[in-house]
C-alpha cells in the first residue's frame, strides 16, 4: 500500500508543480541549441589551420577527459557514501563510537581508510559529512589526508609496483599515516577550530543548499539519499573539473624533460618529483606504477616523496580541500605536508641510500 501511495504521491507531485515544466523546457531548449552549435564547431575543427595549437588542445582535452572519467566513479562513490552517512548514521551514534581525544581521533581518522577505500576524489565528501555529524576535526583531517593511501586497494597496487622494495611500500604507508596524524594534531590544537573551517561545513557541499526548502524526506529514504547525493555531487564536481583541467593544461605545456634533469640530486630530485606529483594529479591507486617508470632516473628519496606527496597534495585535491577548510588552513596544510615529506625524502637520500 505504501508503495502505491508513494507512486500516487510522486505522480501528484509532478502534476502539482506546473512551475517546473517551463524550467525543464528552457533547460532542454538551451541544451539542444548548445548541441547544434557544438556539432557545427566540431565539423569545422579539422578545417582550422592551427596544427600545433590544435594538437595541444586535443591532448589537453584527452588528458582532461581521462582524469574526469577515471575519477567520476570515485566521486560518485564518495558522494553516495557521504549521503548514506548523512541519512543513516545519527549524530548520537557517531558521538558514542568516535573518540574525542585529539590523538586518538587522529589515529582513528588516519586508519578509517581501511574501511573506506575511497581515493582523494571522494574522501573529502565523506570527511565533510563526518565533521558535520559532529566528528572531531583531527579525525576528519586525518581521514581526508590518509585515506587515499592507507586503504587496501592502494596498498595492494603499491606492492604490485614496488614489491621488490618492501621498505618503500611500508615507508609510503607509514609516512602518509604519520603526516596525516601530525597535520591533524596541529589543526586539532587550534584554539578556535571553527576559524579553520569554511562556514557552511555542516551542510552538503552544494553552495547555498538549504535542507528545509531543497527537498524533504516524505518521498522516502531513497529519494532523500538521491537528493543528498545530488547536492554533494554539484558541490564537489567543480573542484574535480577545475583540478583536472589545470592538471591537463599543465601536463600539455610543461615538458617532463624539463624536470628530469635533476634526477639524482639528493635535494632537488625530491623537490622535482613533489612538483611533478602535484602537476600530474594522478589517482593514488595507480601512481605507484608511474613512479616505477621514474625509478631508474630519480633518487629513492624522490620516489618516496612522489608516492607520498601526490596523494596528500595535488591540483585537484587542494581545490577540494577548500570545501572543508578555509584558504589559509589549506595553505597551512600544504606547507606542513610539503615540509615533512621533503625532509623525509632528503633524509632518505642522504643517509639511507
Amino acid at each position, binding site marked *: 500500500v505504501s508503495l502505491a501511495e508513494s507512486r500516487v504521491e510522486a505522480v501528484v507531485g509532478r502534476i502539482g508543480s506546473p512551475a517546473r515544466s517551463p524550467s525543464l523546457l528552457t533547460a532542454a531548449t538551451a541544451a539542444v541549441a548548445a548541441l547544434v552549435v557544438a556539432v557545427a564547431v566540431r565539423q569545422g575543427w579539422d578545417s582550422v589551420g592551427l596544427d600545433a595549437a590544435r594538437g595541444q588542445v586535443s591532448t589537453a582535452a584527452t*588528458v582532461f577527459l581521462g582524469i574526469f572519467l577515471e575519477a567520476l566513479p570515485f566521486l560518485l562513490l564518495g558522494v553516495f557514501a557521504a549521503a548514506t552517512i548523512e541519512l543513516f548514521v545519527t549524530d548520537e551514534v557517531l558521538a558514542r563510537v568516535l573518540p574525542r581525544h585529539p590523538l586518538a581521533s587522529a589515529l582513528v581518522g588516519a586508519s578509517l581508510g581501511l574501511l573506506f577505500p575511497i581515493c582523494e576524489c571522494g574522501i573529502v565528501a565523506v570527511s565533510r559529512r563526518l565533521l558535520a555529524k559532529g566528528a572531531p576535526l583531527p579525525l576528519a583531517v586525518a581521514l581526508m589526508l590518509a585515506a587515499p593511501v592507507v586503504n587496501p586497494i592502494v596498498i595492494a597496487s603499491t606492492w604490485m609496483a614496488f614489491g621488490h622494495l618492501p621498505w618503500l611500500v611500508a615507508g609510503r604507508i607509514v609516512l602518509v599515516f604519520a603526516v596525516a596524524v601530525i597535520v591533524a594534531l596541529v589543526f586539532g590544537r587550534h584554539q578556535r577550530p571553527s576559524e579553520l573551517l569554511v562556514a557552511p561545513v555542516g551542510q552538503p557541499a552544494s553552495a547555498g543548499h538549504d535542507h528545509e526548502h531543497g527537498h524533504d524526506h516524505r518521498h522516502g529514504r531513497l529519494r532523500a539519499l538521491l537528493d543528498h547525493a545530488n547536492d554533494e555531487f554539484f558541490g564537489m564536481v567543480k573542484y574535480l573539473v577545475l583540478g583536472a583541467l589545470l592538471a591537463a593544461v599543465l601536463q600539455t605545456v610543461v615538458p617532463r624533460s624539463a624536470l628530469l634533469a635533476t634526477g639524482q640530486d639528493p635535494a632537488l630530485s625530491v623537490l622535482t618529483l613533489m612538483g611533478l606529483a602535484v602537476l600530474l594529479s594522478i589517482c593514488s591507486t595507480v601512481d605507484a606504477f608511474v613512479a616505477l617508470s621514474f625509478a631508474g632516473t630519480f633518487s629513492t628519496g624522490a620516489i618516496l616523496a612522489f608516492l607520498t606527496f601526490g596523494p596528500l597534495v595535488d591540483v585537484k585535491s587542494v581545490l577540494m580541500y577548500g570545501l572543508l577548510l578555509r584558504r589559509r588552513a589549506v595553505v597551512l596544510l600544504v606547507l606542513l605536508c610539503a615540509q615533512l615529506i621533503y625532509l623525509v625524502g632528503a633524509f632518505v637520500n642522504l643517509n639511507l641510500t
Partner: protein
Amino acid sequence: LGAAARAVLLLGLGGLVVWNLASGQVHLYVNERSVWLVALTLPFLLAMAATAWRRSSVGRERLSQIAAALPIALVLLIPARPLGSAALSALDAGASEARPPAGAASSPWPLELTAAGGPGAAMLTWDLRLLERLRGSDPEMRGLEGAPASLVGFVHRTPGLPSDQLLVGRFMVRCCAADAVPITFPVHYPGAAELPIDAWVEVEGSIRYAGADGVRMPFVEASAVRLVPQPARPYLYP
C-alpha cells in the same frame, strides 16, 4: 531553473558515458580495466537526474553547472583523438627513457634474452611492447641484430630527424590518459618524409644497430611500411 539545469546536466553526463562506451571512445581516455567502473556511473547519474528536476529549488551554483557542462562540451566540440605526436612532444619522451631498477620484480623479461646474442631473440617478431619490456631490463637492448620486427603505432618526428627516418610511437596507459608514458622506436625508411604525422602505420622489417663511440642504438630497417586504421585500443596496457 537550477533544478532543471541539474537534471539536464546529469542526463548530459549520462549521455557522455553512454556515447563513450557505445562508440568505444572510452578507450581513448582510460585503461580497459577501468571501463566497467565508468559504466557503473550510469545508473547513479540517471537516478540522480530522475529526482533532480523535481526539486523545488537549489542554491546558486553557476560555477558548478559550468563545471559539470565542461566535459560534455569538450566531447561535443573537439573530435576525440588518442594521445599522439603532439602529446609525445609535450611529454618530451623523457619518461620512456626511464628504467626500472636492476632486479625489479616487475621486470617480466626472461634473463636469457637480455644477454648479448641471447638464444631466441632472433626467433621472435618484436613489437613495441616487447621492445619496451626488453628496454626495461636491458637499456642497451642487446642481442637483437637481424631479429624480425613488426611495429604498429603513430608516426612521430622530432626536429632535425633525417628525412629517411621516423619514430613509431605508442602510449602505455596504466590508469588513464594522465599517466600515459610514451614509447617510441626509431625506424629507417626511405619514404619516411611522406608519412603524415600521427598517421597510424604498420612497419615490417628487421632490427639493426647504429651508432658511434661504443654506443649502439637499435632501430628497425623497414622493408615495408603501410598505413593502417587507428586501432580500436590505441594505447598499450602493461
